[in-house]
């Protein structure tokens, strides 16, 4: 989780990723951020996020995103 938070903070240093639960709904992360994020996750966690998983529920919070990474890793 700490590594993911570091990746997110690198994208937007001024956002409280630990607590924010509306990263997509509040347009904090845009489509460019998401692509960068997916590439970083692939690079660091060796997990490929497929296009069908790019839905607000999976990207609205760091917690949800981490759960997605874990789920995909287990699959």
């Amino acid at each position: 989780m700490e590594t993911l938070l570091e990746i997110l903070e690198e994208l937007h240093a001024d956002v409280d990723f630990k607590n924010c639960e509306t990263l997509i709904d509040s347009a904090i992360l845009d489509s460019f951020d998401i692509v960068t994020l997916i590439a970083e996750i692939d690079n660091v966690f060796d997990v490929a996020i497929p296009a069908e998983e790019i839905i607000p529920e999976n990207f609205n919070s760091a917690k949800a995103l981490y759960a997605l990474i874990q789920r995909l890793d287990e699959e």
Partner: protein
Amino acid sequence: MLFTSYNFILFLVIVFILYYCIPKKFRWILLLFASYFFYAQAGVELLLFLLSTTVSTYIVSLQLLRLSGTQKAYIAKNKTVLNKEAKKAYKSKIKKKQWKWLLACLFFNFGVLAIFKYTNFTIANINSLITAFGGTKQLNFLNLVLPMGISFYMFQTMGYLIDVYRGTVQAERNIGKLALFVSFFPQLVQGPISRYNDLSRTLFEKQAFNSSNVWFGLQRILWGYLKKMVIADRILPAVNTIINAPEDYQGAYVLAGMIFYAIELYADFTGGIDIVIGIGQIFGIEMTENFNRPYFSKNITEYWRRWHITMGTWFKDYLFYPISICKPMRKLSKWSRNHLGEAVGRKLPVYISTLVVWFVTGLWHGASWNFITWGVFNGVIILLSGECAPLYQWFHKRFRVENKIWYSAFQILRTFLLMSSLRLFDCYRDVKTAFSMFGTLFTKWNYEVFFNGSMLELGISTADYMVLLLGVLLLLLVSLRQRKGSVRQQMAEKPITVNLLAVYLLFMAIIILGAYGIGYDASQFIYNQF
């Protein structure tokens, strides 16, 4: 049968009455027949296109469903003997089979679209190349008529199929229901490009008559007609005068043309969508909103989140993300990180995908270099503004201008003028003329034409300007009220007499102030031709 024709109004009234007279369970079937009847008015033979898309999508979606079922059954049956790797390998095998089916269907349907929309454009380019290399032989153009609304229903249907492939939508087993999703008449010709999960929630419901829905829907339809007939069609002659004679109308006229076209396009397209969504509402069917006060956007990225939303999200979900996160792109990104640096490796997927998406978006709008240039320019400006973001942030902090009303107004005006400039490619006959006319904004100083009566010689009179001014003020007022939520909801909280008076005034404004007769063409919505 166009929305602005008397035949369409009559058709709508008949369908509406029948819809609420027949038993609820047959209502979606009536809408299917009505949709096919509506489409057949453009040419009975065109139904073949609609049918081929529906049937091919139906067959392939059931194949995808069958393969998913096979996979589930196999894994359940062999749960105890399959390890993680074996399960993964089996899933991958099934996914490959599904991918082949999907690809075949996409290829067939987009192939039909490409043949009808881009064959003559390709021939024209080949002919230009032949001429450029000194050849004299020219290929003949084909007599192809683009089936009405094909870009819209094709994108909607292919979106559905991709969702079935991804497993985010359950394939529809009833071909009639799928046919209605593909052909639902209000949205057939200019969108919105709906998603199956959104539209199917209410499209196949056993709808009961709901007076509030009908009342709200009627208001929205009237509002759409007002935008289209009182504003868009009235300003159209001035736009045409300016763009059809670029030799005579330069400098200040180009600026006027840009602003007039921005008003026309907004009133035309959002008006059309208001009519579509309003019609859906009187039948109790909810459709996705396509606009969110786009002219109040502060930058180009925000603008594209608020203008033609369903097209933007279609391209984002089905083209931008798949390209930017596909295996080859991930490999390219990793390679560039190692060889060209961290920053390049990060940005490369976004840059390539953005340019591809905007190239295709331009092509979707029309088979011409004008639209392709327009699309690529949009992509380049979006990327440039992304690169300049740190500079903007520094400027905002340094001068403390963010959230100041005057600065917000400046940002809105800047975005409005930027988007209006880009639309010059949409207006003029070729790319060269568009560039040249943009140049005259700065080289031809004839701005006195705004004050010496020249604006009255563009095909619209003082009375037209007065009506337009009132219309635009009304649009502005409604947009400002929308910040507090639905205007119709706000109106509903007022006494019934106020509501009746508002609807009566709307109706009378369309009857009295709508642009009719010689010199006006109320027959075509701009987005119908895409």
